[in-house]
């Protein structure tokens, strides 16, 4: 069985922040097609602020996720501030007391984040939101893990499903949020939240894979 250490893994959140900041212009460009084009700007601002507070402090993964979630929740606003804020804070709560994190605990963490998002938002899968990435990604991870795949293999399944979920939003009509006012005109464009969610899950998965070790 594979697992990774909580205490030494805070830097994973820095690499998540790097990916979001690198994709600032791209995320805003996608958002601009059916929204007002500030998704990349606001995400990069929040993740950048959180990274400044995490850098060099030797945080655990739980500590870094909590820092990120709190910054998004209290300083960013918009729709993504509370949605991602809740997700990262709930991630942190689940793993807070664990020294080692295995696939079962990682799954529990993902589900808790999803529950948090669903408690404040009103979207469902198929509404062209970040849930179209997050929900299939979690399902794929659980299925792979349940089939006896390793933690690493299950993470690969998660990333593949997240990216397929992101791509599925191209063919969806937005049902919630500002893009929902466009009706059919939202077809043919990726959802910005689904796209940033795929970036987040992929960099999270890569960071964990690098740190996996066999359990004693």
């Amino acid at each position, binding site marked *: 069985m594979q697992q990774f250490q909580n205490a030494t893994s805070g830097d994973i959140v820095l690499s998540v922040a790097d990916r979001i900041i690198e994709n600032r212009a791209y995320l805003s460009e996608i958002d601009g097609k059916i929204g007002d084009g500030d998704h990349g700007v606001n995400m990069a601002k929040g993740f950048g602020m959180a990274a400044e507070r995490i850098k060099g402090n030797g945080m655990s993964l739980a500590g870094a996720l909590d820092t990120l979630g709190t910054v998004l929740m209290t*300083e960013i606003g918009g729709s993504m501030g509370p949605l991602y804020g809740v997700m990262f804070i709930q991630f942190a709560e689940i793993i807070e007391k664990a020294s080692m994190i295995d696939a079962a605990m990682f799954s529990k963490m993902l589900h808790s984040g999803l529950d948090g998002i669903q408690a404040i938002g009103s979207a469902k899968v198929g509404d062209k939101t970040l849930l179209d990435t997050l929900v299939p990604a979690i399902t794929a991870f659980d299925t792979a893990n349940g089939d006896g795949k390793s933690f690493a293999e299950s993470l690969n399944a998660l990333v593949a499903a997240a990216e397929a979920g992101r791509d599925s939003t191209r063919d969806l009509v937005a049902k919630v949020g500002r893009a929902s006012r466009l009706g059919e005109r939202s077809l043919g464009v990726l959802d910005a939240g689904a796209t940033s969610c795929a970036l987040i899950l992929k960099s999270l998965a890569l960071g964990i894979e690098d740190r996996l070790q066999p359990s004693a």
Partner: protein
Amino acid sequence: MQRFINNPDEVVEDTVKGFVKAHADIVRLASSNPRVIVSRHAPVSGKVGVITGGGSGHEPAFIGYAGRNMLDAVAVGELFSSPTAKSFLDAAREVNGGSGVVCLYGNYAGDNMNVKMAIKLAAKEGITITTVVANDDVCSAGPDEREKRRGVAGEIFMWKCGSAKAAEGGSLEEVQAVAQRAIDNCRSIGVGLSPCTLPAVGHPNFSIEPGTMEVGIGHHGEPGVRVEPLKQASEVARDMANAVLDDHNLAAGTEVAVIVSGLGATPLNELYILHDTIESEITGRGLKIQKTYIGNYFTSLEMVGATLTVMALDEELKRLLDVDVQCPAML
């Protein structure tokens, strides 16, 4: 894009700094949060606090409506982006006089979520926040789905009447009920002739072809119900008035209040040109105009365009609308 800005990422910070310097006699910054504007007259012990919040870029909304007999505090968001839950919470904390707080805001996904979280956080501190959500934009959903409509300039009447009710000592339930009735009695429509640009993005994210207009446009450039050739002002004004009044279906003899607001880049003279026909259409249906506001009351950065809002009055709303106010947007 030629603009008076310093850092494109700090437009909101710089706006707020200038705003509080200009209107220091009416408003102050919250001590705990540079994204909350508080009336100099708040809090008042025993009085219901009235707050709102929304994205920046709509000035004088939302900040300009804080003041005496008006909003007690306003949470300030990024350009076109909801304020944080913390800012809504801090606004409520600043104005809580022990009798609860009413949050009067527009029907946007981000605002709905952040207000919801602020309510939860406030409850833990013993502060009750109740809400009224504006839904006056007739073009954003059909009459059978009014709860889906977005709030636009009708919010100003909701703030005005709700705040006046709170100022005269109304209870939490009474303030909420008056604000709800005010927005229920409002219908609005917007017409856009050119798009707007977020400074940090640097280019407009949609286009309105020369010679056309977007009917039913939202306050962030959300598309409307149709694109059609730009017509003479009188025809545009007639269409706007009819869209609002047909949805409203008011009995002849009803008294109304009217706002014709520019979206940021429309000269005042053009708003008066529109109003000339709007007034004829309204009175032509046997309605009586009690009060008219013409100006830039609720804008969308530098969008060219205008909105029309009509509120039906009853005796109480009429009296509350007449209450004298001191706020930067209505000096």
